């Protein structure tokens, strides 16, 4: 049996509230399916499942707040692909099937429960199973008062839930602040940062981009940051020690998932990951941004997007600061910063000219790598940005 746990969506997450199950007992799930929605400091997150199988049991009730690592559900790892064909025809009456099953099980249990006819009728009207009610009558029989008590309790719980949910929405920007505070304090406490800066000539890259955009409809235009993301991913292929996490030692990661810092309109940031950025084309990266930036701002990200980042990129964009020296998001070991692009006097091969230039920075975890690695990384990044057509 596979235990499905409350995932950690970053070093700063301690607990989450299970808001809604998206699957039921008996449902088959496969890798990547959304199994539940969980409220965290970073908003309402869709939680994905990483195993294949049939849901054996959902252990946590909706509305419950539990710590990271709590078992939420049990999944029976049956070969789903083989079963699917057999199951399909049955799925035509899934509701009927389940109801019959449910009633039989409950009926079996309720044979032994004593209750007055009125109490039975009231419980049925309010969809309360008799075994959930503690009887106070003769020989433990359930009375009308017992049922009324349960109904009253349920109303109070429902009201509390609504209050909590309202408070959460109001407090969400405070919650984000708290999440950032926790992660950045941890980083500053535990990670010995080193900082490097490299001035990169972007003239060729921007000329290529402008020509590419002239051929495109306005809807499919590319932003310079797409070239940064792709160039970083390509460069990281040669620097596996920077695409890694620190967990009692350096652990390089196979996939290159670039966490992209998105500033929220009301303050705060979200850092969704662009999965396998090295395997995506520049157009695919732009499409990913078109998808994740609005969702990050609406705080509607998926669990994998919040937890899979292997390195972070923070880009200032037009008109921002000239350079940014980032704080590493633990357990990652590097963060790359791009300042705003500006026109500057630029000397090359003994000639002085005006070029579009950007200051790229790297903050590295000195436990994991040294300045030499970081410096070689920035040099190759600069060279890769001189060949935008091969990105």
């Amino acid at each position: 049996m596979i235990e499905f746990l409350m995932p950690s969506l970053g070093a700063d997450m301690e607990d989450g509230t299970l808001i809604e199950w998206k699957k039921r007992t008996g449902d088959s799930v496969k890798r990547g399916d959304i199994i539940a929605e969980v409220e965290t400091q970073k908003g309402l997150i869709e939680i994905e499942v990483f195993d294949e199988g049939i849901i054996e049991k959902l252990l946590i009730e909706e509305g419950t707040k539990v710590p990271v690592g709590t078992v939420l559900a049990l999944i029976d790892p049956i070969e789903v692909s083989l079963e699917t064909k057999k199951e399909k025809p049955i799925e035509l009456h899934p509701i009927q099937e389940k109801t019959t099953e449910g009633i039989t099980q409950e009926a079996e249990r309720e044979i032994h429960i004593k209750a007055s006819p009125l109490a039975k009728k009231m419980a049925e009207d309010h969809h309360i199973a008799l075994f959930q009610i503690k009887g106070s009558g003769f020989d433990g029989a359930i009375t009308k008062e017992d049922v009324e008590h349960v109904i009253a309790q349920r109303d109070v719980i429902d009201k509390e839930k609504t209050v909590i949910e309202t408070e959460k929405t109001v407090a969400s920007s405070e919650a984000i602040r708290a999440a950032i505070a926790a992660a950045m304090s941890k980083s500053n406490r535990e990670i010995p940062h080193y900082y490097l800066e490299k001035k990169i000539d972007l003239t060729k890259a921007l000329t290529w981009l402008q020509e590419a955009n002239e051929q495109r409809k306005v809807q499919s235009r590319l932003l310079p940051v797409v070239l940064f993301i792709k160039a970083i991913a390509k460069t990281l292929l040669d620097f596996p020690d920077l695409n890694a996490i620190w967990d009692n030692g350096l652990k390089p990661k196979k996939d290159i998932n670039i966490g992209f810092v998105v500033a929220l309109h009301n303050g705060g940031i979200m850092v969704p990951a662009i999965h396998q950025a090295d395997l995506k084309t520049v157009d695919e990266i732009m499409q990913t941004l078109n998808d994740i930036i609005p969702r990050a701002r609406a705080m509607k990200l998926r669990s994998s997007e919040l937890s899979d980042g292997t390195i972070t990129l923070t880009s200032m964009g037009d008109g921002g600061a000239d350079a940014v020296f980032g704080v590493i998001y633990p357990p990652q070991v590097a963060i790359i910063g791009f300042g705003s692009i500006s026109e500057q006097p630029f000397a090359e091969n003994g000639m002085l000219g005006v070029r579009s230039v950007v200051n790229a920075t790297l903050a590295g975890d000195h436990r994991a790598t040294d300045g030499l690695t970081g410096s070689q990384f920035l040099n190759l990044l600069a060279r890769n940005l001189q060949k935008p057509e091969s990105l």
Partner: protein
Amino acid sequence: MNEDEIKKNIFQLLKKIAPDTEPSVLKPDENIRETLGIDSFDALQFIIALNEKLGIEIPEKDYGKTNTLSDLLSYIMNKIK
């Protein structure tokens, strides 16, 4: 479409992109992006929205001609003439 109608459309689209701001308080010579805190991504969404709503295409090289409300208005007026 007259200038007031275009202005109304611009405000509506800006409000959609930067919902926490009040675009109608923009002064004619203020830099739209700086004043409303619009980043490169949102700026592109605004250009796309203008294209979809008013049918005008702003090429990248003309972005510099659309920085303020008065520049943007006269740019659009010229385009739809």
